């Protein structure tokens, strides 16, 4: 193993690997944020009184959670452009080409999965909040936004945090899969460097260490968040 390969600057691959790590972090954050929004929407649909909404949300989560992420990525990547152009031509009457930046495509790929997993987490957390509390809030004359802000959201956030932490870990690790569509994150950068230097072990090991660092760091972040959310909760 030749460690000078990891030098910073033009001679080595250190700076490229670091840049790959930044892309990994950015795409993971973007996908996670979008995924939680999708998940909240799906959770609301699952708890909705209208049956077709519930069916759609159930179908979405069952299918996406039962199919390999790699297949979902191939679908979004290879089929996304066609779908986008169909929408553009159908809704706006535009027949030319529209593109999405590769970063956005990668984000959507990952958010599709993150949405399915966080939907389950959020629904579970909402159901934990006792109905009586909401009824009591109505009784003391709280408005709908007040009930949401003061009763539902703080409790749902607390109960959902552990599960959402898992979804974050999943999303972070799944970013490695979008290297197949050409976004230059840790994995793709490692593959390029491995091929160029004929030292695959060195570079995939570096990739593994980077992921290990990122998961460990974010794990600490979620620990702190959970402590904060549980402030004022009496321990049994």
């Amino acid at each position, binding site marked *: 193993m030749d460690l000078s390969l990891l030098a910073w600057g033009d001679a080595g691959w250190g700076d490229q690997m670091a840049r790959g790590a930044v892309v990994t972090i950015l795409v993971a954050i973007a996908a996670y944020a979008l995924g939680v929004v999708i998940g909240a929407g799906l959770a609301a649909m699952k708890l909705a009184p209208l049956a077709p909404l519930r069916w759609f949300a159930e179908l979405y989560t*069952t*299918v996406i*959670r*039962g*199919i*390999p*992420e*790699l*297949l*979902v990525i*191939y*679908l979004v*990547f*290879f*089929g996304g452009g066609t779908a986008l152009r169909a929408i553009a031509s159908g809704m706006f009457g535009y027949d030319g080409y529209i593109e999405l930046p590769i970063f956005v495509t990668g984000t959507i790929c990952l958010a599709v999965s993150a949405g399915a*997993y966080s939907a389950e*987490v959020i629904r*579970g*957390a909402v159901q934990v909040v006792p109905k009586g509390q909401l009824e009591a809030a109505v009784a003391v004359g709280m408005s709908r936004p007040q009930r949401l802000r003061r009763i539902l959201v703080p409790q749902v956030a607390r*109960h959902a*945090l*552990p*599960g959402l*932490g*898992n*979804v974050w*870990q*999943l999303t972070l*690790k*799944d*970013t*490695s*899969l979008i*290297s*197949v569509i050409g976004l230059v994150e840790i*994995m793709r950068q*490692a*593959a390029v460097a*491995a091929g160029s230097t*004929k*030292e*695959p*072990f*060195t570079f*995939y*090991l570096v*990739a*593994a260490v980077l*992921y*290990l660092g990122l*998961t*460990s760091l974010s*794990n600490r972040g*979620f620990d702190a968040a*959970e402590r904060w959310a549980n402030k004022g909760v009496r321990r049994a």
Partner: protein
Amino acid sequence: MDLGFLIEIIPRLAAGVPTTLLLVAQSLALGFALAVVVALVRLQPNPLGAGAAYGFVYVFRATPLLVQIFLIYYGSGQFRPVLEDLGVWVLFRDAWFCAVLALTLNTAAYTSEIIRAGLQSVPLGQIEAGRAVGMSRLQLFRRVTFPLAVRQALPAYGNEVILMVKASSLASTITILEITGIAKTIIAASFRPVEVFVVAGAFYLAINFVATRAVRFAEHRLATASAPTRAPAAPTRQLAATR
């Protein structure tokens, strides 16, 4: 969507189903055996052994499976002379071996945590009762602790089985033509991702449906009237509980 094309690719993708199933079955069987060992090592008093087991679990759960597969497959090529001297290169030369090795180590890390939780859930009274009737340590483990732990761990293990079915798709990245590998080949040649996704996705959903049913059946068989029922645990975050 082109229905004719969709029907045309069904047999081609179906040819990958046995490969996927075999890959999953081998990895799950080997991974479960390894997981039992790892869980026991973690729970025994020697801090060195317990620490090593914890390190193994931590590393394999905190890094993406794709990195693990590439590290084993392409990474081993960098040490070919050494591995040849050791006489194990014949194994690493084979993509199937590398895929099964990576999947086995990966599922073992996750499964050992499931088993550990199961072992810890066994009520102390049961173990004391076993001791009272004069069981040896091995007897106690085989007849009391392990069966009770497995029953407790089954629902979580069912989830792990599904995750493994999905994870096996990554073997396609090291030249193994299972369902996803074939799907990618068809997409690359036909540029029709939607039809391929529908058919390949349906195969995975079917496999997972059958697997879920099988685990439920096992749960049902193992559940007896005398079994202590436990309230569902509060959600906890584990390090990278998902793959």
